[in-house]
């Protein structure tokens, strides 16, 4: 950087120099931000490079299908879309039950590109939506952290967020899920809230409501915002930080935000009716009471004010008690206390496992383990405490918000693995603050120690951006009354700088005393860089190895090269081309979205687990003996049954491993299915010790049908055991397709027997079936059941 020679001399030269410096820093920051965006985008492309440009996992397939529909039929059709391909025979109103933010975003991008004659397919747009929005999210982090602790911290936090593994896990290319855009919306809403809080501008308050609206459109996690911001407002009021800026930051958000949120069909009147939103209204009232009190306090003399207080408090308490009593009665009258199941399981972590097995059965709703923290946020876990301390020195409105944010999100991430995603940005922001402050301290001490630069204290103070930001905050506090009108962004900063000068000078004097020894600060700097390098290495590894697998195509490396397991798509393609368009396919709900999207066939249940009874019906069928299962499926008009079986190649997340959940969910509605019937001494097993109920249930039979003929022993590679019942035949189902590695097996329901001819021909048909069976399977004669 160009160090000025006569910096202490004339004010104009100093001013121009600083302006140049600021401009240079601005351009540098811009390019760093650009590179951060590029990095955030490109680190998520490992999945495309290692696998292919394809939609991942389960839920993204549904979103992809909805986007296809939107691109094909337009927005109005989309709102009215009744999907008869799923939840047969109930169907599902997609337009009213889906968070439309993601699909609308991708649909808009697609439409925009197509109107510019860039013919990208819907799939391509969907695949790359998540990486694009992660770049946006890192920029939003920069803005948020800049508002809290200045540009340096902002850049560090943005860089950290761009590659935090927790976020990568949900936003790799192809992971086309709500979280992909929601995290951006979350951070951006917080940024606008802080911005409004710092400036008191109604413009930002309005933007904030719109950003909140976008968040509501995108993800159910918007309740986090609408609870966190009231908490912060309450905190500010309690700690005596009430100001008109706080009022402007909060009141428009509640009014406008709630109105806008109610526009989203899936939220609708929930925006005012459910307990999740209750806190925001309560705080809204409190805020107004407090504002009113401050107003009264301003116009009355202290003595009169005391009288007024006693009067109001006595009357007000009575009214409040009445209102609260009514509210409590209303809330208590509903069985879940007005909370949705997922929110309740957040507040009471044991709730789901007790009452809603369907929520508990999802792996991402389990509490995380300690290693998963290290895996997902890595070194940030150590930097977070330092960042929190940094937030307290000095504590501003903005930094208190960050502290509150991280405190709540740590709790939520401890309840559900999935909410690690909400925690990650908070961790990045605090770690960014911590890192930047540490760098700040060390570089400043080095500069003070070095003789050449030591004299130019003013320049130094002006250069370290974070200290100016702090100074800004101080100024804000000192001249609170006038500041709101004066404090405008960048263009008016010239004026402000002049006022700050004496202040910063004094500050620099103070900081000279805080300087650390040269060698220790150099070593600490190197250690910090090493820490950052470790983080980067870990993130790249996580992005490349851990989180890039699309899970519909699996690979394994063996001595003779890469082996691809593409069984899922093989089965779905088979269903798509070789079954009738209106055939119904039954499978466990995990595969519902994929079946509708990839095979284009009607399913009974899918990943949108809105009807527990329906899922329990399928669970019951899977855990019933063959005949009973056939009757259940036949009553549902099912033609094909699809099971996922990993026993041949050792794919662990197959249906046999999920089977206990089917029993539990099925048993929850149909009590004749009892979990202990499937367990031998409390243990789940499928070997010769397994219970007869287990060995006769449909899932067992469909999974292991003719499995013994593959190796002669029927050794299950997932369970690492030989199966209990090896030779059996199916009477009501027939195998119609099994994929190359046996991972997906599709069975067809045999048509019902003809009743009139059934009795007379019974003996005849029996002999004919056995003879044909013997003919079909060459090894039949050896089998004991023949």
């Amino acid at each position, binding site marked *: 950087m160009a160090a000025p020679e006569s910096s202490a001399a004339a004010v104009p030269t100093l001013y121009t120099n600083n302006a140049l410096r600021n401009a240079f820093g601005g351009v540098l920051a811009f390019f760093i931000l650009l590179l951060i965006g590029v990095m955030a985008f490109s680190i998520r492309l490992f999945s495309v490079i290692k696998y292919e440009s394809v939609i991942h996992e389960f839920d993204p397939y549904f979103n992809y299908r909805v986007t296809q529909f939107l691109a094909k039929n337009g927005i109005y059709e989309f709102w009215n879309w009744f999907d008869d391909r799923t939840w047969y025979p109930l169907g599902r109103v997609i337009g009213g039950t889906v968070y439309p933010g993601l699909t609308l975003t991708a649909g808009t991008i697609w439409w925009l590109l197509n109107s510019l004659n860039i013919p990208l397919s819907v799939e391509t747009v969907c695949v790359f939506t998540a990486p694009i929005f992660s770049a946006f999210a890192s920029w939003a982090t920069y803005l948020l952290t800049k508002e809290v602790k200045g540009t340096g911290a902002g850049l560090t936090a943005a860089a950290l967020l761009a590659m935090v593994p927790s976020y990568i896990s949900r936003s790799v290319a192809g992971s086309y899920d709500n979280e992909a855009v929601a995290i951006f919306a979350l951070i951006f809403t917080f940024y606008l809230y802080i911005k409004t809080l710092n400036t008191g501008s109604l413009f930002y308050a309005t933007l904030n409501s719109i950003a909140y609206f976008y968040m509501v459109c995108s993800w159910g996690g918007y309740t986090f915002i609408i609870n966190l911001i009231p908490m912060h407002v309450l905190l500010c009021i309690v700690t005596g930080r009430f100001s008109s800026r706080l009022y402007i930051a909060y009141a428009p958000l509640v009014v406008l935000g709630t109105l806008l949120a109610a526009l989203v069909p899936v939220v609708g009147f929930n925006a005012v009716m459910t307990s999740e939103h209750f806190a925001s209204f309560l705080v809204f009232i409190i805020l107004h009471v407090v504002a009113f009190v401050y107003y009264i306090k301003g116009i009355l003399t202290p003595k009169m004010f005391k009288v007024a207080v006693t009067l109001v408090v006595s009357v007000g308490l009575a009214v409040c008690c009445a209102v609260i009593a009514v509210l409590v009665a209303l809330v208590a009258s509903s069985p879940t206390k007005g909370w949705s199941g997922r929110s309740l399981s957040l507040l009471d972590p044991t709730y789901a496992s007790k009452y809603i097995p369907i929520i508990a059965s999802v792996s991402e709703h389990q509490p995380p383990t300690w290693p998963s923290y290290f895996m997902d946020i890595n070194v940030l876990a150590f930097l977070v405490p330092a960042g929190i301390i940094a937030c307290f020195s000095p504590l501003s409105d903005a930094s208190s918000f960050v502290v509150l944010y991280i405190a709540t999100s740590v709790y939520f991430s401890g309840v559900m693995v999935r909410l690690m995603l909400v925690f990650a940005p908070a961790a990045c922001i605090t770690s960014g603050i911590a890192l930047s402050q540490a760098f700040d301290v060390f570089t400043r001490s080095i500069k003070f120690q070095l003789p050449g630069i030591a004299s130019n204290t003013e320049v130094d103070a002006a250069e370290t951006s974070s200290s100016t930001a702090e100074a800004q905050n101080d100024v804000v506090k000192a001249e609170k009354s006038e500041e709101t009108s004066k404090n405008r962004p960048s263009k008016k900063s010239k004026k402000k700088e002049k006022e700050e000068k004496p202040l910063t000078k004094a500050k620099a004097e103070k900081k000279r005393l805080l300087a650390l020894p040269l060698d220790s600060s150099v070593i600490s700097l190197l250690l910090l860089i090493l820490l950052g390098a470790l983080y980067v290495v870990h993130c790249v590894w996580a992005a490349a190895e851990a989180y890039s697998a699309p899970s519909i195509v699996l690979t394994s490396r063996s001595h003779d090269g890469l082996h*691809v397991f593409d069984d899922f798509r093989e089965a779905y393609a088979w269903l798509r081309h070789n079954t009738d368009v209106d055939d119904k396919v039954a499978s466990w709900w995990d595969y519902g979205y994929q079946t509708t999207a990839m095979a284009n066939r009607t399913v009974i249940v899918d990943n949108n687990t809105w009807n527990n009874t329906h899922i329990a019906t399928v669970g019951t069928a899977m855990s019933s003996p063959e005949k009973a299962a056939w009757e259940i499926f036949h009553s549902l008009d099912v033609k094909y049954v699809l099971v996922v079986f990993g026993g041949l190649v050792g794919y662990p997340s197959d249906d046999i491993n999920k089977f206990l959940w089917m029993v539990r969910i099925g048993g929850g509605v149909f009590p004749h299915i009892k979990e202990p019937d499937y367990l031998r001494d409390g243990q789940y097993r499928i070997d010769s010790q397994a219970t007869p109920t287990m060995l006769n249930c449909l899932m067992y039979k469909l999974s292991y049908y003719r499995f013994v003929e593959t190796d002669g022993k029927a050794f299950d590679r997932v369970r690492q055991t030989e199966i209990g019942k090896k030779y059996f035949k199916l009477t009501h189902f027939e195998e119609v*397709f099994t994929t190359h590695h046996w991972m997906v097996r599709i069975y067809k329901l045999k048509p019902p027997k003809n009743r009139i001819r059934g009795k007379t021909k019974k003996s005849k048909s029996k002999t004919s079936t056995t003879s044909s069976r013997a003919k*079909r399977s060459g090894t039949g004669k050896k089998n004991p059941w023949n």
Partner: protein
Amino acid sequence: MKQPRPMKTFVLQEQGPIELTHATISYFFPKVEASVKTHSSTPMEAPIRATEFLRFTLLSLLFFVCRSSPSHDLLISNAERRIDLTSHIVKVYLTLKVENAGSTPTSEILLAFPPTQVDHLATVEALVTKGKRKKTTLARLDVTPTELPDAPNGTKYFTIYLTNPLNSGESTTLEVLYLFTHSLEPFPAEIGQSESQLVYYRDSALILSPYHIKQQTTFLKTPSTKVESFTRVEPTNRAGTEMKYGPYEDRHPYTFSPILIHFENNSPFPVVEELVREVEISHWGNLQVTEQYTLVHGGARHKGVFSRVDYQSRPNMNGVSSLRYLLARLPPRVHSVYYRDEIGNISSSHLRTDSRKSELEIEPRYPLFGGWKATFVIGYGLPLQDFLFESSDDRRYLNFTFGCPLLDTVVDKLTVKVVLPEGSKDPSAVVPFTVEQHLETKYSYLDVVGRTVVVMEKKNLVPVHNSHFQVYYTFKPIFMLAEPLMLASAFFLFFVACVAYLHIDLSIRK
């Protein structure tokens, strides 16, 4: 089996050639076959009964009433026909020795086909042998479909135009090749996984011709020695995989003698129901080809169970007629090949390239049994200089193959789209056979006026159609710069707008 009996007796009466009138003949034997099908109660027994019955039934010779033909002064002194039934495309090689017995020279020779065969006829080619015994060369002749006003029973004709008119008394030898698709009818129509595929082939023991044939022989070649049944029209011999009908002497014009052969053909029947080939020309040096396939196995339909364990452990006995892989022959120097379908990449493909050709071996996601379908897309890039040339009149032309690059497949409907670069004019296509043509407009990356697309459609194609076609057009190279300039100016305007915004103070109060 009650009903067919009287028919059998009826047929037995007609041992010798009997002249029949139009109405009674027409085409009765498919109907007979249909009635057999409906009466067979179990599929296992059906083929036996059917063949037994048909053996008697089809021993009939049917005469078409011969009316005055425009050139019946021609006669065929010797005809030899070889029918190759080894694959699902039936190849017929016909050698005709034509003699002009009339008084006037003629240069047109008619080939006659029954109407049912014409529907399946993919191509007809005729060659004439020239020169003396030692130095014989073959010359290709023009063949065009012809309508005759008095064709008996809807017989369709093709006319071969000789280069030199045949004077009276002279004779010439013609080699005719024609191919039939969809002419092997699987019977039984549905088979299980472990059964082998049996098919019917129908034809006439005698060559249908508007001319008098002095002597004729027909040879049929089946893929294996396993022949369930065949119609005997004495003299008929069968040795190994070959069957010989004839020689038959002195048959009148329009003599027809239906024969039916029921034999094993375990080769898969790959049929591309629809193929759309899009060839996009970029003057920046690339030719992008995208081919969308709808593939179906046209053989006997798969019935009942598909057992993977049987299929994997006994591949020789199970699913012998299933379609496991396909081979596509692509031009040399092919690059960026992809093979995918609507749900993503299909990983089971291999590309082998050498300097003369590239071979892409593709496996569908699952083995195709009879009646199973699959759709997929193959795309690849090619260097432009191999295919784009400048003609003498300053126009450019693309020289590319027309048909389907998959070997040994039948294409029911092919659409070839040639996307010319934006700004090209006066497109015209030259195709060696008749196709339907029209023009379309396509908008690709950043197009403003759109690209002209020459669309050519043809039905019923066989690998013989893989000949070259040309699309001529004019194009000014300046158009190549349009899109880069457009992008550059857009960015320029964006930056100008940014600069302008930064220098304007929009605040009301200073």
